């Protein structure tokens, strides 16, 4: 497949490279903030090309950010932006990819701990890592194109979750993301049409992001007290010990003023959420690959030949990872009234159904 947009071409190559290294890759990330200028509104701070996350078996995250530009100048400007992004996300690595990079920019990048690649450098590294034009970059391109085609319909049918994934997810803490995404699942549940690819893809994309937040939450529990999952989960979902205390005090006050008010302090799915976290901790090595596994489920909906080209999730990630990824889908299904058919292909070992493309 020919790619005329050279920025895009570099972006897809970097995505394929990071994916091959085990990362789950998110493209075209927007960072936004909300401010009171005249009225409360969202304002874009910046956008960048690639954000990749790699979950480790102890539930630590390795993060990589990348900017890909088909220009020969302004390298210092991009370097400083990347350095800011690296710091904002606590990223372990940052890639600057430009058509040409002068030696001074490379020197500054090295000092900043940023990897500098021109296209030839990138091709060399890709070759060493085993990323090939066919199938890796081509598939990356096919998925990107299919995803782009669906965005309009997704925005029209489900504007809120579409915006949430694009603008809000990466600036919020994990407990807020879980609460918000679960709320969005519940909100869209009666409008989701399992026969529409755009709906299936969006719901799967939300599941991928939920898995990121859930893995982050599990990491917090592991760091705090790995043997006290239920309480750790509750504390984190209430925003930490101090926040939990304050909310409990507020709740107690409300309960006195408004007895039998039907209010609850924590979401009703908290016990099931703790169960999923316990499952992930119970199979930590397999759990470390759930994010790319769920992403794989999404990508093969977009490009049904994906499994044929790269292998099925069972082959790439193994039975246990696939099962743990499915646990997250079951968690979503049991707490939002989505039609089960929306995840049917991902919950089955037989994809595409009956051996046919969708």
């Amino acid at each position, binding site marked *: 497949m020919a790619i005329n947009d050279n920025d895009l071409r570099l972006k897809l190559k970097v995505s394929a490279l990071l994916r091959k290294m085990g990362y789950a890759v998110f493209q075209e990330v927007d960072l936004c903030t909300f401010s009171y200028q005249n009225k409360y509104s969202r304002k874009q701070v910046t956008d960048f090309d690639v954000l990749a996350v790699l979950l480790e078996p102890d539930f630590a995250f390795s993060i990589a950010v990348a900017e890909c530009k088909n220009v020969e100048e302004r390298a210092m400007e991009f370097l400083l932006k990347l350095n800011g992004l690296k710091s904002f996300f606590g990223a372990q690595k940052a890639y600057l990819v430009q058509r040409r990079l002068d030696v001074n920019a490379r020197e500054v990048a090295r000092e900043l701990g940023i990897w500098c690649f021109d296209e030839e450098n990138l091709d060399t590294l890709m070759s060493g890592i085993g990323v090939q034009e066919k199938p890796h970059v081509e598939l990356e391109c096919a998925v990107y194109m299919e995803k782009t085609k669906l965005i309009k319909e997704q925005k029209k049918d489900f504007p809120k979750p579409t915006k949430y994934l694009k603008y809000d997810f990466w600036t919020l803490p994990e407990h807020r993301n879980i609460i918000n995404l679960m709320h969005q699942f519940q909100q869209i549940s009666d409008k989701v049409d399992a026969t529409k690819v755009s709906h299936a893809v969006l719901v799967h994309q939300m599941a991928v992001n939920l898995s990121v937040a859930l893995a982050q939450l599990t990491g917090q529990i592991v760091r705090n007290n790995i*043997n006290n*999952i*239920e*309480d750790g989960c509750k504390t984190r979902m209430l925003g930490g010990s101090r926040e939990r205390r304050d909310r409990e005090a507020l709740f107690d006050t409300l309960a006195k003023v408004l007895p039998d008010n039907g209010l609850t302090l924590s979401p009703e799915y908290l*016990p099931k959420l*703790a*169960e999923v976290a*316990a*499952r992930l901790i*119970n*199979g930590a090595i*397999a759990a470390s690959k759930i994010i790319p596994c769920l992403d794989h489920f999404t990508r093969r909906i977009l490009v049904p030949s994906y499994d044929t080209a790269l292998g099925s999730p069972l082959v790439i990630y193994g*039975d*246990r990872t696939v*099962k*743990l990824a*499915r*646990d997250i889908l*079951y968690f979503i299904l*049991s707490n939002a009234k989505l039609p089960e058919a929306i995840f049917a292909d991902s*919950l*089955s*070992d037989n994809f595409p159904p009956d051996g046919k493309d969708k």
Partner: protein
Amino acid sequence: MENKIIAARLQDINEGMVRQIGGITEVYYNKSKRLGAAVRICNIIKGQDVITKPEILLIAAGEMGISADTVDKALGELEEIGYITVHRTGGEISKIEERIPLLEDQYSQIGEKWQGSSPTEIERATLEIIDDLMVAPQREREIVKKHGIDNKAFALISDVGKSGSFYKNYKSPVDGSSIGYSPLYHDENPEKIMALFDKYPEEDVSGKIRSIRAYQGMPVDVINDPVLMEAIRMGCIPTPSVNSSRGTKHFAFTPLKGVGKLEKNLLEKARAIISCVRYGQHFARITRIATPLLILKALERRKRIGSHSEILRQYALLHKLGVGIISRDPTSTDRYTFNLLDTPENMRALELAIQYLTIKEPTKEEPKIKEVRQLFLPGMAGIYGSVSKTRIDLQSVKTTTLSDDSIQQINYLLIGGSSGY
């Protein structure tokens, strides 16, 4: 009956149930048979995530007396509950993915499923009678009257119970009446408890005793029912005592006896564990225990409680029973830690204590559960010899004697050989 308790009783009687074939069990106990087997299968596969060799599950279940057909039906029930997903290839099970709750017990939903499956009146009455007999043996005529069943139905329950070794009767040496009891929970002829029933013929004695189940380890100080107070005086209700900062306090438990010396020792230890934490909950002078279950779960994980200044006296009973040892906190002059002695017996006693707080009564231990669970460990599948080892034998059951050829064939399947070759 609460759903949790239903599932616990289904589990208790299932060992005897699955070894019975015949019209009666197939017609009247169909649901109980497969849902009881479902609880026991949960105990085997919980936490496995994926079982890629379903034949190992069949072997493990077979060792516990559950036939392949019953396993199949039980898996169907578990799939409907949402505890597992069974993947099939060409109609045969190729893989099982399990999602049995890790942090909560698996009983509630299975009990709910049983309730929703429209069990027969005979099944329902059987479970109620067995649960009643868990508290104490009773005269058969009173059982019939209390549970509102006719003599024919009771005869049927009695037959199945006797064949399944979960119900027996004997003639009272005092008045010659027929007394029913469950050999799962009691020895024959508990004289004191029968005397208590005789003393209060108009009262629902077993119901009153059972009320203790709602709060096992209830401080005796708060009990004021005359029947229960008499039961305590007569020694029908176990009331272990703990002596610490507020003097000696007794705690009441339902009078499950446990069959065999080893089980009785385990129950004594389990009750002692509960009594010690209940003391800390109700009578401690400094920092009372808010949630005893959390303390016991922490003890299970960390094998230690403390440090705390009251541990020296409050946990002395456990020290005396060999459950653990008390040591001084090296960083303090007046604080102590309780350190659990990590033996299989003590861990089982702690497990029973946790069951006292969660499902209100300890369930019977599956005699082979540890051995069959080991079959699922990586590298263990190829060393199958015979999993039968010394164990608490609750009943004499007929198990298939394995010839060398059969063991060889099972070994072949376990190491990954294909069936049919």
